[in-house]
């Protein structure tokens, strides 16, 4: 055995079996992107439950030669590919997240004040404006729809729609959606102040009526019947959402409800975050599109906030008991962040004006509204 042979063997091993000589500059950039999102999640506490697994997914998938997002020689998906294939591609994880969200949601404020559903619809304005805007920038119709739904401020809905219509944009869309959801307290207040006068911000709303347990129990059934009959395409999301809520309200399956709210939700969140992060390989992510998606996502949030507040202003022309326009901004779903922002802005205008429970109505309506918008888009492409 000569030295040349040994050296060739070492070179072969280094080139084919270690990652260092195969590491590309763009992969290093993607790792820096991953670190940035991990920093936002850990240091700034921006949606840590989602951004930590997503950031780590980006970090892992950009290692050269790592058997994570490909297929084995026998055609079996590798670890993260399996999470993605069976969880996201098969459209299982987003509806399961909706199941957990349903189990966690108290629809009381919405049932007590159903008029706020209209605010939830009005706040979808940005979704449709962005849809047109992205088309001008050369996005296809399906891509435009998947980018537009970011403004609905609902992570699982964004992931569900993007996986269905434009899977190549999944990573960028999910990141934009969750990042902006976390930044709602920064994005919304200036728009809220711009669109309201001090007098309007001080409007005190009538206390919500108490909602009986029986009413809460029937709500998921009635809502599921009406929504799924009108938009069948939204059945996987709304069906699971209402099922989760029914488990919560019926009170006889506490174990199932608790599991849906906690263990199941946590497991799914890990799988979803890693899967989404794993789609962001350097060769896919480093282009104009993600930058544009982030730009349009911001515009989307701004217009959605504007749409919600504008809807309240229009409603105030017709209703006897005036609605505080600050709760309009909660029409972007981002539960409960957007409602909290409405409450804090209300308190700034008048320290005795508590808007939280009033804002929860449009906030929950926003969840239904964004799911309805997603259903509309899915139906459009069927």
């Amino acid at each position, binding site marked *: 055995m000569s030295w040349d042979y040994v050296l060739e063997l070492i070179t072969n091993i280094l080139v084919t079996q270690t990652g260092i000589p195969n590491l590309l500059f763009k992969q290093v950039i993607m790792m820096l992107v991953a670190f940035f999102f991990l920093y936002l999640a850990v240091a700034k506490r921006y949606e840590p439950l989602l951004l930590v697994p997503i950031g780590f997914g980006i970090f892992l998938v950009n290692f050269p030669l790592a058997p994570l997002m490909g297929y084995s020689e026998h055609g079996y998906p590798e670890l993260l590919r399996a999470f993605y294939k069976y969880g996201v591609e098969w459209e299982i994880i987003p509806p399961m997240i909706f199941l957990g969200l349903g189990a966690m949601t108290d629809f009381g404020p919405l*049932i007590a004040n*159903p008029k706020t559903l*209209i605010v939830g619809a009005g706040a979808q304005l940005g979704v*449709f404006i962005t849809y047109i805007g992205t088309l001008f920038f050369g*996005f296809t119709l399906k891509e435009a729809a998947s980018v537009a739904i970011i403004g609905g401020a609902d992570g699982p809905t964004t992931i569900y729609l993007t996986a269905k219509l434009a899977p190549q944009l999944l990573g960028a869309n999910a990141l934009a959606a969750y990042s902006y959801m976390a930044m709602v307290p920064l994005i919304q207040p200036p728009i809220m102040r711009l669109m309201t006068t001090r007098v309007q911000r001080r409007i005190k709303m009538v206390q919500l*009526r108490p909602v009986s347990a029986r009413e809460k129990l029937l709500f998921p059934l009635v809502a599921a019947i009406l929504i799924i009959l009108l*938009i069948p395409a939204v059945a996987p999301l709304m069906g699971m959402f209402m099922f989760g809520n029914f488990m919560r309200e019926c009170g006889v399956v506490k174990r199932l409800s608790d599991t849906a*709210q906690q263990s199941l939700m946590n497991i799914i969140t890990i799988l979803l975050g890693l899967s989404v992060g794993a789609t962001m390989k350097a060769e896919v992510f480093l282009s104009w599109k993600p930058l544009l998606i982030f*730009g349009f996502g911001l515009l989307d949030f701004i217009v959605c906030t504007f749409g919600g507040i504008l809807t309240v202003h229009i409603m105030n022309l017709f209703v006897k008991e005036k609605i505080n326009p600050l709760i309009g901004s909660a029409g972007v779903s981002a539960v409960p962040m957007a409602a909290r922002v409405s409450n804090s802005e209300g308190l700034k205008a008048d320290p005795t004006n508590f808007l939280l429970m009033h804002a929860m109505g449009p906030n929950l309506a926003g969840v239904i509204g964004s799911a309805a918008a997603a259903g509309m888009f899915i139906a459009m*492409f069927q």
Partner: protein
Amino acid sequence: MKTNRLRFLLKIIWVWLICVFLMMAQTACLVWATFGEDQEKPQPEFTRKEKTITAKLLPRAKSTSVLIDFEVSGGELINVQGMDFEKADRPDVDHKDFKSALFVIEIGSLTPGAEVKISVISDFFIRSTQFWIFNQKLETPWMDSNAQNLDRPDRVQELVINVKDGGPFDSDMNENGRIILMGGPKDSFWGYALGTLFIRYFGIFIVLSILMLGMIFSGKIFQRMEDKKTKATSKPASLTVQVEKAEKPEVADNGITAEMATAVAAALHLHFSGLRASHPMSVSPLRPTAWAQQGRAQIIGERLMMYHRNKR
């Protein structure tokens, strides 16, 4: 003063930078079409059944495949193939308008100079769908075939195109008993995009309005039921009867009447309640005290916990 000016200038610079970025991005996107690879390019597969050739394809902006039938009367349909848009790309046409691909239709067994009718049939077409033809030998290569758009049962539309051997629609432009027609069904992309946008945005209002009406209606029923239940549990008439039936208060042995005992009890209660409260509570609805505000904040905080994202 200087700081304010500086801030103002910075804001203007930021706005300009964003505008320049967007303009550059748009130019880059449009030059690069749909970011390089055309993700939605239809790739038709053809099958033949007697005189009909059927194309199965996934059109642009659709998630489900559609079928398009080709038939010919007055000649023999020899072949139909798919065609790349790049070959027919001209500045005055947009490939997005051709949602269901371009086709090359070959017809034979004709007497030279004869005219045939080509039928293109699908439930994917709508009443405004046109059939545009490409002939690179002409000065204006793209033209409307002025196809008749006929209604068929089950929401199927039929586009009928009259083509003359050697005419402008025939790509070889020779009267040779053979027609080669290049073209495809055309719908307005922007018309579709804006139309569907309008319909679907208001669709959300309609859906949520119906849900709202349903909730208001069911809410009224529940409120009425609750009211009835409350009335049933606190009927004043029955109470009167009970009071009437109740035995008359007895006079205590030591000479204190029931009224006096009640007055003494009330006085004692007020005395001890007063001792317990450090500050008398303000009941003014306009300016609640710090004590009341703190209580409210605590209640709101407890409610908020339910919706706390990190607790999920």
